[in-house]
């Protein structure tokens, strides 16, 4: 393959935009994914990514910014979930399931009613190659805001995730931290929606964090690693999609999964091979160690 061919994607404006916007979104989602995986909010991420669909549809029909519609819809869903959870003894995962599928179903219905104005495929699978300049500006604003909030508050959010009781005994605003994390999750979901689509957003918000978790035992490093993994896979995925002529979202998430599998097998401490080595070592020394 000649160098010309390899550089070809960079000669198209739409590809350049797709590449850097994907990278940015990948980095932000990767950063947040550390919190999402450790807080046990993976299902919540999945729910929000589906719940934004009706908002996107309505915003599109009304000619409003897509991010605004998506964000409002996501927050409404989150509010509905906490309200139902508070008022019934139904288990949390069931509540989340009921609410987000209701939102998603409404979104699908909306799209099917207005097939001329709404493109099901681009909402569900994303279409970063056709992203409008206005949307790019919104994504950049969301990303900058998320990174800023995380940079300032990550230690508080870490304590909140690890030990909310300690956070409370120290007088930290636990409810506000909870809300902050929820807003960040909604915002990044909205941002990632256009790159990879509603269905695969959740992968961007979980897989890099889960991979990083296998690679380190320090929270700070996990965040940086998750972010780097997210950025790299998003860039490489968008780049590969040019040659494969495949869906960008699919390429990105397949790459992220490959990264996870590598960490799963070769991870220095939590990987399968490391665990086997450790077991073997244990077997060798076991007779010498009294229990």
């Amino acid at each position, binding site marked *: 393959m000649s160098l010309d061919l390899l550089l070809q994607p960079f000669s198209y404006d739409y590809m350049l935009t797709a590449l850097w916007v994907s990278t940015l979104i990948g980095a932000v989602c990767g950063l947040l994914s550390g919190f999402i995986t*450790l807080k046990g909010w993976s299902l919540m991420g999945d729910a929000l990514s589906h719940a934004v669909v009706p908002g996107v549809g309505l915003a599109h029909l009304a000619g409003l910014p897509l991010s605004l519609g998506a964000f409002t819809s996501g927050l409404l869903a989150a509010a509905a979930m906490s309200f139902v959870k508070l008022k019934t003894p139904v288990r949390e995962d069931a509540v989340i399931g009921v609410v987000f599928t209701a939102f998603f179903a409404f979104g699908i219905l909306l799209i099917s009613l207005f097939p001329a104005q709404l493109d099901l495929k681009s909402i569900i699978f994303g279409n970063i190659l056709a992203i409008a300049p206005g949307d790019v500006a919104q994504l950049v604003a969301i990303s900058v805001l998320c990174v800023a909030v995380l940079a300032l508050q990550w230690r508080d959010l870490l*304590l909140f995730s690890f030990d909310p*009781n300690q956070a*409370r*005994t120290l*007088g930290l605003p636990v409810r506000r931290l909870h809300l902050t994390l929820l807003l960040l999750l909604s915002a990044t979901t909205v941002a990632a929606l256009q790159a990879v689509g509603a269905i695969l957003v959740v992968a961007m918000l979980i897989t890099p964090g889960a991979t990083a978790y296998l690679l380190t035992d320090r*929270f700070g490093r*996990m965040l940086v690693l998750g972010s780097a993994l997210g950025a790299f896979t998003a860039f490489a995925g968008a780049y590969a999609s040019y040659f494969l002529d495949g869906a960008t979202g699919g390429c990105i998430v397949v790459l992220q999964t490959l990264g996870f599998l590598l960490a799963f097998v070769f991870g220095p401490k939590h990987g399968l091979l490391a665990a086997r080595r450790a077991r073997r070592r244990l077997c060798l020394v076991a007779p010498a160690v009294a229990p």
Partner: protein
Amino acid sequence: MTPAPDRPLTLAARGVTVTYPNGHVALTDATFALGGGTICALVGVNGSGKSTLFKALMGFVVPSAGAVTISDEPVRTAQRRGWVAYVPQAEEVDWTFPVNVHDVVMMGRYGYMNFLRIPRAADRDAVADALRRVGLWDLRDRQIGELSGGQKKRVFVARALAQQGRVILLDEPFTGVDVKTEEAIVALLRELRAEGRLILVSTHNLGSVPEFCDQVVLINRTVLACGPTSEVFTADNLQRAFGGALRHFDLSRSTVEEHDGRQVTVLTDDERPLVLGQGGHLEYRDRSAHEKLVADREAGKT
């Protein structure tokens, strides 16, 4: 943040009633007062409201009646000043979380740090000091899940130390902990008592209470009795607190006879036994530290 030196440390609950959202009244009219320089046991059967009382002391539940004050301040204020430190039960902690021993102990210092929570030299010193006191300095880089049960407990004791809390709450600290660790923690609690702190330990392990607690709050959905251990730990009070939930060994009805004199050896496998004497008063394992009590009782008898 500095513990107000002008005001003596007190912890007082006045008429505290806690009602859970489902309508269950877990505590009714609980009243007691404690001062600094004490290790107090919070004793009661399962479901008697020990954890509920802790939650009220930490401000996690707001009493539907009555109030808790710490040095005459409401719990909220005391928290903001970092006065209340809490050592959680092992089951409450996510041991797979990617934090090491040092990170966790540093979390005790958040209240002293600025908005960004960037540790300063004073914070590092406090953490190092706390880690050395509990003997975990060499393990400071370990992920917390890779510790033994006793070491895990000590991490959180170190966090309370680093926080320099005036009131330290420990929920069931000796469950699942080996004897050596228990003794290490008890020694540490004694040091903290000597520093004038107020330590409240919830436990259902009766036998260990007389060993290291000078005060007891006995609860069963309300405060049944509170005061010095030797006064509160009587057969009557324990009967009221535990009802039929205790196993007895009554010497007078046993095969132990006059010719055995005072020679009886009590063995248990895990928990320490609680031994009560004639009329149901508390007997200590080691009389050397309690000469005065023995003399008083002698005087009372004659």
